[in-house]
C-alpha cells in the first residue's frame, strides 16, 4: 500500500487524497509526503495510522519528511503508535495545544475513559463539549459493535484556532458498512449501503421498526444532522464509496433536515480505492454550535416523520373485488 500526505487534505478537498491512495499489497505500507508543507485533517492521520497498524513494523517505510510542518505527525503520535523512527524533535506537552493525539479504542471501558479526557484535552466549555462527546461516543460505539475491526477504532481530533473548529476522525479496518447493512437490507453497492446507514431507523441488526434492544439505526443520522444544522462537513467512506455532506450556505435561517441523505447538499462517488472498513471525518465549528437541545428538536421531528411514512408505505389495505 502507498499513501501520500499532500500539501492540504481537509474534508472539503479530501477527494484527491483518497483517490491517490494505493491499496494494493496490504503487507507493506509506504508513507510519502509533500516536501514543503503538510496540512491535514485528523481523519487523514487516523487513516494512515489504521493502515500501519495492519502491517508489520518492519514493512512500514516512511520517507524522510522534509516539510517544516511534519512535526504535526510526531506530535499527534503517528510514529510512536506505529513504532517507527522519526528524526523529528518536538516539545511534546505544548500547554496551548488543543488536540487529541492518535488513540486506539478497543472496548467500552477505553471509550468511557477517552470521553472523560476530551473536555480537558480540547479545552472545551461544557456547551461546546456536548456535541463533540456525543459524536465521538456514537461513532466509536459503531466501530466496537459492528465493525469487527481487529485494531479497534483509531481516533484523533484537533482544534483549529483560525476557523474555531474541532476536526475529528474515527477510522476502522473492519468489515465495512455494506457487509453490516447487508445483514438485514439489500444494498448492492457500497454507496447504496452508505445511503441506508445514514437513513433514520435503518440498522444492519434487524428490519424491525424500532430496532433491537441494543440498536435503533439512529446514530449516523444524528451525527450527520448535527453537522448539517451547524453547516459543517461530514464525510463517510467505506469500500469504494464516499458520501460527503457539504456545507449549507450561510444566510439560510432555517436548515431543513432530510431523512434521505441524497436530498442534502452533498457529493458522492463510488470509484475510490477500496477501503476495508469505515472512515468518518467531521468538523464542528464552535462559532456555529447550536444549543444541543434545540438541535434535538429538529432531529426528533424528522425522525418520527420518517418512521411514520415508512410504516404507511408498508400498510396494506384489504382488496375488495
Amino acid at each position, binding site marked *: 500500500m502507498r499513501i501520500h500526505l499532500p500539501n492540504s487534505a481537509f474534508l472539503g478537498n479530501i477527494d484527491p487524497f483518497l483517490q491517490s491512495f494505493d491499496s494494493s499489497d496490504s503487507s507493506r505500507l509506504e508513507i510519502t509526503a509533500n516536501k514543503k508543507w503538510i496540512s491535514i485533517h485528523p481523519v487523514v492521520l487516523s487513516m494512515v495510522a489504521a493502515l500501519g497498524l495492519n502491517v508489520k513494523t518492519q514493512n512500514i517505510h516512511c520517507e524522510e519528511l522534509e516539510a517544516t510542518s511534519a512535526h504535526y505527525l510526531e506530535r499527534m503520535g503517528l510514529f510512536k503508535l506505529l513504532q517507527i523512527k522519526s528524526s523529528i524533535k518536538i516539545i511534546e506537552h505544548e500547554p496551548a495545544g488543543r488536540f487529541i493525539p492518535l488513540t486506539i479504542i478497543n472496548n*467500552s471501558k477505553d471509550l468511557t475513559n477517552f470521553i472523560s479526557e476530551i473536555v480537558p484535552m480540547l479545552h472545551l466549555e461544557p456547551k461546546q463539549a456536548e456535541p463533540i462527546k*456525543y459524536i465521538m*461516543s*456514537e461513532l466509536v*460505539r459503531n466501530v466496537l459493535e459492528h465493525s469487527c475491526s481487529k485494531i479497534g477504532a483509531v481516533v484523533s481530533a484537533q482544534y483549529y484556532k483560525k476557523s474555531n473548529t474541532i476536526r475529528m476522525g474515527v477510522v476502522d479496518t473492519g468489515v465495512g458498512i455494506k457487509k453490516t447493512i447487508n445483514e438485514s437490507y439489500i444494498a448492492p453497492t457500497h454507496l447504496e449501503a452508505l445511503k441506508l446507514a445514514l437513513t433514520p431507523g435503518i440498522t444492519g441488526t434487524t428490519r424491525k421498526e*424500532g430496532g433491537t434492544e441494543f440498536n*435503533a439505526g439512529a446514530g449516523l443520522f444524528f451525527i450527520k444532522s448535527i453537522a448539517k444544522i451547524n453547516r459543517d462537513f461530514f464525510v463517510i467512506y467505506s469500500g469504494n464509496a464516499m458520501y460527503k455532506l457539504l456545507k449549507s450556505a450561510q444566510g439560510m435561517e432555517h436548515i431543513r433536515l432530510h431523512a434521505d441523505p441524497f436530498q442534502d447538499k452533498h457529493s458522492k462517488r463510488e470509484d475510490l480505492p477500496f477501503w476495508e472498513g469505515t472512515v468518518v471525518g467531521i468538523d464542528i465549528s464552535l462559532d456555529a454550535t447550536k444549543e444541543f437541545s434545540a438541535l*434535538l428538536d429538529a432531529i426528533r421531528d424528522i425522525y418520527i416523520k420518517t418512521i411514520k411514512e415508512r410504516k404507511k408505505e408498508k400498510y396494506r389495505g384489504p382488496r375488495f373485488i
Partner: protein
Amino acid sequence: MKEILLLKKVGSFAENKDFAREIRIKEILPALENNEEIILDFKGIDSATQSFVHALISDVIRKYGVEALDKIYFKNCNETIKKIINIVSDYMQEM
C-alpha cells in the same frame, strides 16, 4: 416504588450502553415484573446519548407496551436528556 440513581452507575455523560442494558435487565424489568413503579433518577447527569436511552428503555416498551411508561418516572432530567428520552419513547410507539 423502586428508585434507581443512575449517576453512580453510568457517570455524568450517560453513553455506555452496556451499563444501560445491565440496569434494564437487573433492575427495571424485575421491578415491572413485580408490578412496582420505578423512578429513574438522572440527578448529576449532564447528557445522554440516544443509544444509551434506547438500550435503557426500548426493550421495556417493546415487552410491556406503552403502558410501561405509566410506571416509569424520569426524575431530575435536564432539557437535553428529556428530549432524548422523548425521541426514544416516540419512535418506540411508532413501531
